[in-house]
């Protein structure tokens, strides 16, 4: 009897030992092998199998950390796959300047990816282009494209903007107020201005100098035209025509799209400074907008400024005023296009010029 029971006990012990071993193996499988295989797939196997380097970018609202990572380094000529996902609210993803790369909006749960190759060393910006928070425009990241021959060297920046440099050299303060001494009554019209300019024959000297449309303010041009003998109203119409002359339907359309996406929330769809973001200023103390957005349709301030001042303000941004800096995301040509578009808020376009 006793023997039997001991034998049985032995057998039990044996089974118990085997069970422990099995449990141990299962535990190791779960705790060690599973994570390693999952992470290994994610971080080792998949990148190794992928034909291009993939960079996962999490796009969160600025209050929640913005882009993570917000700085990417790639070699010139290398193709990388950027894969964007969002954790919180919808964002829009674009890369610029001058790349025409707009991935559109990415909603929570969605992933959008794009393969990019930068042939030359330089600096690019990936940015959110869908209003996602009061601080939306701060949501940006940089792409540094280095020369594979000299990976340590910092990429040469595009160099200072010649317009900004020239303004600085001349001691022009782009933040100074600029009033129009005698603003027009009613809206000057480019359509009427065509005939006025035709009848004038020769234009005053200041209006024949190169680049006048960018360096001269409409108010200064108006003074010269009145001195040359035009009536005040005629002179404003002539100015409207001269300032909008380079506008064609194509540029107008591109500029209005840029404006709607990037500016209207603050400056208003009608350019009246009453954008929705400005309107809800009191609701959003965190807006960080220290000044009211400018009304572009107000001739008494708008016509006292010159194109180059507006260009510079756009590229550099305000000094803590809430006006974002658009230099990192727009090309100089896109910036000029926008400046030209701003004039259409104070002047009536010639209907022949487009929509």
């Amino acid at each position, binding site marked *: 009897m006793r023997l039997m029971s001991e034998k049985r006990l032995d057998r039990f012990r044996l089974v118990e030992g085997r069970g422990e071993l099995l449990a141990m193996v299962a535990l190791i499988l779960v705790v060690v092998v599973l994570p390693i295989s999952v992470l290994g797939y994610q971080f080792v196997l998949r990148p190794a199998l992928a034909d291009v380097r993939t960079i996962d970018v999490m796009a969160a609202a600025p209050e929640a950390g913005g882009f993570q990572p917000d700085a990417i380094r790639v070699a010139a000529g290398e193709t990388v796959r950027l894969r964007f996902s969002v954790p*919180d*609210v*919808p964002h829009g993803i674009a890369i610029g300047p001058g790349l025409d790369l707009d991935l559109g*909006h990415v*909603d*929570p749960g969605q992933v959008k990816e794009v393969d990019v190759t930068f042939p030359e060393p330089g600096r690019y910006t990936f940015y959110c282009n*869908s*209003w*996602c*928070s*009061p601080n*939306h425009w701060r949501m940006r990241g940089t792409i540094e494209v280095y020369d594979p021959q000299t990976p340590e060297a910092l990429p040469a920046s595009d160099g200072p903007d010649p317009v900004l440099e020239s303004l600085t050299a001349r001691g022009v303060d782009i933040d100074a107020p600029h009033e129009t001494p005698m603003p027009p009554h009613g809206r000057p019209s480019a359509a009427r201005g065509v005939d006025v300019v035709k009848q004038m024959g020769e234009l005053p000297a200041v209006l024949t100098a190169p680049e006048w449309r960018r360096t001269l303010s409409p108010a200064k041009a108006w003074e010269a035209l009145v001195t040359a003998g035009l009536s005040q109203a005629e002179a404003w119409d002539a100015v409207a025509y001269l300032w909008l002359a380079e506008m064609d339907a194509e540029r107008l359309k591109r500029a209005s799209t840029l404006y*709607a*996406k990037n*500016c*209207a*929330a*603050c400056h208003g*769809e009608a350019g009246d400074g009453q*954008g*929705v*973001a400005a*309107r*809800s200023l009191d*609701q*959003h103390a965190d807006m960080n907008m220290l000044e009211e957005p400018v009304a572009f349709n107000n001739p008494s301030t708008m016509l006292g400024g010159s194109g180059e001042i507006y260009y510079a303000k756009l590229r550099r941004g305000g000094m803590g005023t809430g006006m974002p800096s658009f230099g990192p995301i727009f090309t100089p040509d896109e910036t000029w296009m926008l400046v030209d578009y701003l004039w259409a808020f104070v002047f009536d376009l010639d209907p022949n010029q487009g929509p």
Partner: protein
Amino acid sequence: MKRDRLLSLAPFVGLALVILLIPLPLTVKPVTHVVTMTADQFAFDPPVLRVNYGDRVRLTLQATDVVHGFYLDGYGIETRVEPGISQQIEFVADQIGKYRFRCSVSCGTLHPFMIGELVVNPNLTFARAVGLTAVILAGTLFYLRRFPPREPREHTTA
């Protein structure tokens, strides 16, 4: 006797005339409602739209803080509104009842509660028709109760 019978119906005839002719403040012709609706976290303003059947609704949607959406149940209208780019929606209220409109873009924590309501009331012609039917029905019932038709058979034998 016969005059009595007709007279007893007079109140109903009067009521029917009133229903048909009274110039209620509601207009018969469908109107166009031009409404600017703002969407911000986490509500629509105005939250309720009341229109009559057949009316045209011209909505300008503005998002004032972040991107929102607008989805109207029943009508299947959907759009996405970004701050600074207002969206125009136009439709004819051709379905009577209450329809919810909701934000269709996940816009933040309370996004599921961003809901408003479109109430499409039957219009005046419809209301008049309903009223008239009710009056005629009531009149008939009243008449039948007061002057029940005698069974013709009983009549002859009695």
